[in-house]
């Protein structure tokens, strides 16, 4: 087979449907990455326009441009859009587009999940836009503090749009994070051990792990607040045993890591581009990986610095102040490693490099003001003033937008296969840079003069008029600059001057393919021996196109790839991907029905949507099975690999591990909330305690023991080639017991609208019930598989996956039942 025949054959296997119809059924990471990025930039423009409206309003004193009702919506939506609908999806889009290419494989781990995530993002984002168009957008500020955001003080639907819309979008973040984590750990080119991984992959991995552990507290907070608003469960009402500070803890437990979730991918872009711009290699690769890890961890110990003025005891503040200063150290390591990289090489002032310099200048200032506000006495003055707004933009614009602009200019030739023709970019950079600093230096200043954030008007006597006007003029220069970048990019896409391959002379694998990239990325997969494969083998692209790598011969109509051992990069499984399908968009639409029903309080459509999602998920996973065993398959170079469905640690198992990590963080946050209310909230102890029942407790606990044991039994019987149906059925029985005990707990809990104690127990019981029902569905699924002959001693992957979920259900089931019954038993 010659290169052209191979290309034709692979294209028929991998191509998405032609035309715009293909958008709805594509599961290809290149398509979806581009869709993510374009949508995210659409939201960036919207968010930017809102920022302009803010600056118009603040340009003059006593401004009558927008009344406070509208203004509050404008700044809330600006913050919300920028954080949730622009920054995070931009990371997801970039990672989805780039990772398989840079790691030398053909797609991400779960292509249909990528599509599902995209559609959840698109639908959730549209919900927010609709709210804005109708003038009923959220208006409580992007951190939505109750009681202001509770039903009493915000009775309208505005806040519900935020809580529900953002949770919907969050699903896509968690989906993408699971996807990215598994892809980086398992879906790499053979030979790519951890130390040969491109640095961007490290950053993306760390970011994804942070999303998995950082987002659940916010999802929990949103769920609780929405339940409070809709059904009157008083989680955040001080007079009924709740505490509004619980929201602040949950929000910032998410909100601070969020800042690093935004910065780290940008740092990954910098670490990738900077050495190329300096014709050298990255200085201190291992140090940078360690610094990024340290940053990720430390950032989970800082959240209280957003709550320095809430009256937390002095020593508590001191802990968080100390941790907040410490986090500057790993940031410093990265900054200086980058400057060292520049000293080591020969920096060239190309366009991406300009934006990187913009990053250095801006981000260092933002970091320094950040260290200042970490000092408690200073923060007591600066908190909630324009100084904080200015600081956060130095960090976010400097630490994210500039690097992303650099990335856009760097990878645009890869996306389009073209050369830049018009030279608008340099001028645009100058305008953005100057405009940004004028806008936000002025805001630092006016903040120190006492201007609060989030005020719609001020008086001429305040003496802030001139500074605000300067700031607003600056912001218009900035907007013009961003507009020019947009035009530059559009012109680039439209002009027809084809570029050459690898225009920057980079060493990473994404340039070892024709541009624009093909649906299958690589005609055959490379073997990696160094961190910069293209430096060692400049003609790698040609070799791969000639089919000299792994999996060079297309088989059947399979979309094939392989996975590797995490640490060593030795190939260990053969994978067949699903092909184009509309299932993801359909499923996210039904998920949307669920969320919209909650929003509009159409409670009778909620169960319909839940059943719909269940049926679709069932179909989704059912399609993965095989009716017969598959022998190990040759992948070239004399290696044969077992198919993933014939292993105990299949991609599905890995995905479940990380989804459960996020889930466990959610549950942990819920337990934290319970303990927090119990020990800290005013209004405790509750008027009545839960009445313990030995029967219920005993039934639930025995179910929790039976489930996992029976599952293990089923697994071992199956591996001996005998029928595992008894074990699976027993496991189902165990799950039913847990479900009954949890339901009883919900039923008998002290009235959840009277005190936060009953409310929390109700939610805990609900969590238990949900998982028990999930375990019931999964074990039923397994039974159906066994009956239909989809399992065998070899086809065993599903036993391990379902076993994980059964185990998890048992652990949380036991904890939940004990939390409810034990206090009463002990008394």
């Amino acid at each position, binding site marked *: 087979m010659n290169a052209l025949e191979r290309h034709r054959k692979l294209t028929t296997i991998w191509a998405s449907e032609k035309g715009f119809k293909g958008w709805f059924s594509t599961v290809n990471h290149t398509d979806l990455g581009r869709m993510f990025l374009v949508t995210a930039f659409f939201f960036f423009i919207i968010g930017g326009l809102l920022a302009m409206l803010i600056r118009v309003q603040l340009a003059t004193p006593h401004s009558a441009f927008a009344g406070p*009702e509208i203004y509050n919506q404008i700044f809330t939506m600006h913050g919300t859009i920028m954080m949730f609908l622009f920054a995070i999806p931009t990371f997801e889009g970039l990672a989805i587009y780039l990772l398989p290419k840079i790691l030398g494989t053909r797609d991400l781990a779960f292509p249909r999940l990528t599509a599902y995530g995209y559609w959840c993002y698109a639908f959730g984002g549209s919900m927010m836009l609709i709210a804005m168009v109708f003038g009923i957008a959220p208006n409580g500020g992007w951190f939505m503090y109750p009681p*202001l955001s509770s039903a009493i003080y915000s009775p309208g639907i505005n806040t519900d749009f935020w809580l529900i819309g953002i949770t919907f979008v969050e699903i896509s973040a968690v989906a993408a994070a699971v996807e990215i984590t598994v892809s980086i750990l398992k879906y790499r080119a053979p030979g790519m051990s951890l130390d040969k991984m491109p640095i961007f992959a490290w950053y993306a991995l760390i970011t994804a792990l942070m999303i998995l552990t950082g987002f659940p507290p916010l999802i929990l907070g949103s769920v609780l607040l929405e339940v409070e608003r809709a059904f009157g469960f008083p989680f955040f009402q001080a007079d009924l045993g709740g505490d509004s500070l619980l929201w602040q803890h949950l929000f910032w437990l998410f909100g601070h890591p969020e800042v690093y979730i935004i910065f780290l991918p940008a740092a990954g872009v910098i670490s990738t581009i900077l050495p190329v711009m300096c014709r050298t290699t990255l200085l201190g690769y291992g140090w940078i990986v360690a610094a990024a890890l340290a940053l990720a961890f430390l950032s989970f110990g800082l959240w209280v610095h957003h709550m320095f003025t809430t009256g937390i005891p002095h020593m508590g503040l001191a802990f968080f102040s100390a941790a907040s200063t410490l986090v500057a150290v790993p940031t*410093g390591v990265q900054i200086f490693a980058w*400057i*060292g990289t520049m000293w080591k090489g020969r920096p060239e002032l190309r366009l991406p490099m300009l934006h990187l310099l913009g990053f250095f200048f801006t981000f*260092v200032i933002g970091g320094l*003001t950040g260290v200042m506000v970490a000092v408690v006495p200073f923060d007591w003055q600066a908190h909630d003033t324009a100084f904080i707004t200015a600081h956060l933009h130095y960090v976010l614009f400097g630490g994210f937008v500039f690097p992303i602009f650099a990335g856009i200019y760097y990878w645009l030739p890869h996306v389009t296969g073209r050369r830049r023709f018009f030279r608008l970019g340099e001028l645009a950079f100058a305008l953005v840079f100057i405009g940004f600093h004028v806008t936000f230096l002025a805001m630092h200043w006016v903040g120190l003069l006492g201007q609060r954030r*989030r005020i719609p008007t001020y008086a001429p006597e305040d003496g802030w008029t001139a500074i605000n006007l300067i700031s607003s003029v600056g912001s218009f220069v900035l907007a013009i600059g961003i507009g020019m970048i947009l035009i530059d990019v559009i012109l680039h896409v439209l002009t027809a001057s084809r570029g050459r391959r690898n225009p920057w002379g980079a060493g990473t694998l994404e340039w070892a393919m024709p541009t624009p990239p093909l649906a299958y990325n690589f005609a055959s997969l490379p073997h990696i021996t160094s961190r910069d494969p293209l430096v060692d083998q400049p003609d790698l692209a040609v070799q791969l196109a000639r089919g000299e790598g792994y999996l060079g011969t297309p088989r059947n109509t399979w979309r094939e790839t392989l996975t590797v051992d995490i640490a060593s990069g030795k190939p260990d499984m053969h994978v067949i991907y699903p092909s184009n399908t509309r299932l993801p968009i359909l499923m996210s639409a039904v998920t949307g029905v669920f969320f919209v029903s909650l929003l509009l309080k159409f409670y009778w459509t909620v169960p319909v949507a839940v059943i719909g999602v269940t049926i679709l998920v069932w179909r989704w996973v059912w399609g993965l099975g095989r009716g017969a065993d598959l022998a190990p398959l040759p992948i070239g170079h004399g290696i044969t690999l077992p198919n993933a469905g014939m292993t105990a640690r299949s991609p599905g198992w890995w995905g479940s591990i990380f989804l459960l990590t996020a889930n466990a963080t959610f549950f942990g946050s819920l337990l934290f909330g319970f303990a927090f209310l119990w020990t800290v909230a005013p209004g405790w102890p509750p008027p009545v305690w839960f009445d313990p029942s030995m029967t219920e407790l005993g039934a639930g606990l025995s179910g929790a023991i039976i489930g996992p044991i029976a599952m293990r039994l089923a697994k071992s019987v199956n591996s001996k080639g005998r029928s595992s149906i008894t074990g699976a059925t027993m496991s189902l029985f165990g799950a039913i017991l847990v479900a009954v005990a949890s339901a009883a707990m919900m039923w008998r809990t002290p009235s959840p609208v009277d005190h936060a104690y009953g409310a929390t127990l109700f939610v805990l019981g609900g969590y238990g019930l949900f998982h028990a029902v999930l375990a019931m569905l999964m074990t039923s699924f397994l039974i159906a598989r066994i009956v239909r002959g989809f399992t065998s001693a070899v086809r065993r992957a599903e036993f391990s996956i379902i076993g994980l979920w059964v185990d998890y259900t048992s652990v949380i089931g036991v904890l939940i039942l004990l939390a409810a019954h034990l206090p009463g038993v002990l008394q």
Partner: protein
Amino acid sequence: MLAGAGLIFGLVMVLLLLAFRPRADTGDAGNVRVWVIGLGLAFPMVVLAALLAYGLVIGERLLPLASDDVVRVGAQGQLSTWSFTYADVPNRRTQDVLHIPAARPVDVSITTADVIHSFWVPRLAGKLDAIPGRTNILRIEADFPGTYHGVSAEFSGTGYDHFSFTVIAHDAEDWDAFLDEDIE
């Protein structure tokens, strides 16, 4: 603090600029020692340790420690108005104006009747929030008699921009008169 920050920023910018001067390539090992360990690790740790110590010490000093001549007042935020009470004159309540003696420490007990607010008199102290179900105590002290402008510094919906109050610091004589209910 500002000067220190300026110096560090200057240093980073100079190092960036110097990167553009033509040089021969130097190996990785020595570079790691200088850039990563020296400038990346050691330098920030020293600076930050000093800053942290400074911040913690100042923080200790701002604590409302017990003292004999402390005056106690209460401040309750409520959408669009602050009402103030005085421990020394139990049934006295003022609206949007807080009276305090000058040159004496004053402990303000901050509470709220509805949503979260924040009590902030920029020239007298930092801000402290009014949280439902809790009472937070802020120590303020006006060195001289006079009028000080105070604002609510936690977003509280429409009307937030105009949500402010005044603090009047009296000299000893006036303060006694206030306690005797002569001043309204």
